């Protein structure tokens, strides 16, 4: 699925990365705890989060996250936007809550970047 389709499904606003809407995504990870994102999220996944500070962008850069989806209508700080522009990481914001965001994407074929933590470690 392209980021453009993700944007449409979530009725999202693109804050950074308008030029990357053709990027292909298949998996996602959702959490507000960055240490969990670091432990479990996989390269090329969407990151669904309610956290808006620059560390979300840093974490995404470290993991090669495809795009950040801010849930619950969150708007990032100017510092977060600047850093995302600099590191070329798309940020979208949706008014759907985390559960709805995940459900709507799952229904359309996006799956978790892993099913259960006891079956698979985040190391690719």
């Amino acid at each position, binding site marked *: 699925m392209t980021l453009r389709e993700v944007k449409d499904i979530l009725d999202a606003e693109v804050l950074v990365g308008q030029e990357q809407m053709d990027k292909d995504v298949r998996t996602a990870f959702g959490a*507000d*705890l*960055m*240490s*969990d*994102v*670091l*432990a479990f999220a996989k*390269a090329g996944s969407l990151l669904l989060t309610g*956290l808006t*500070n*620059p*560390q*979300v962008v*840093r*974490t995404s*850069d*470290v*993991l*090669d996250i495809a795009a950040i989806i801010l849930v619950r209508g969150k708007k990032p700080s100017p*510092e977060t936007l600047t850093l995302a522009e600099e*590191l070329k990481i798309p940020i979208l914001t949706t008014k759907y809550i985390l559960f709805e965001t995940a459900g709507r994407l799952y229904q359309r074929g996006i799956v978790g970047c892993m099913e259960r933590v006891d079956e698979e*470690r985040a*190391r*690719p």
Partner: protein
Amino acid sequence: MLAHETTLYENQFPVEGGNFDKAGQVSSQIKAILKRMNLSNEIIRRVALVSYESEINIVSYARKGYIHIQVKPDYVLIEAIDEGDGIPDLELAMQQGWSTASQRIREMGFGAGMGLCNIKNFSDFFRISSDVGKGTQLKMVIKIDKVFDGI
């Protein structure tokens, strides 16, 4: 000189304690350098992750410190050395969920007592030592070559 003794890259990056705005900058920098070195994405990702959690720790808990990185043909060595209060009980600090993090650190999405566990899990070799009142030293190795068997 043997091939595995060749140093392909080596550098030391200062990290400022308490400067949350800059937290992660060094790790982004290290990642960009490794990308130019033709290493695999998985190795780069693990080095960046280990470096990033270490950097967050220095910013969160120490007065100042540095991250030292050395790339050899067989492995990447990452050291995170800081000047700070140190850790009185290392066994406790290594327990998942144990943390002394401030509200500020938690607001950033860290401080849940996972950093050191993450660092250990993503490294092939991990050693921590600490002197109370002086600082903490982390040493991590990420293997590039399968036959590598220690430093």
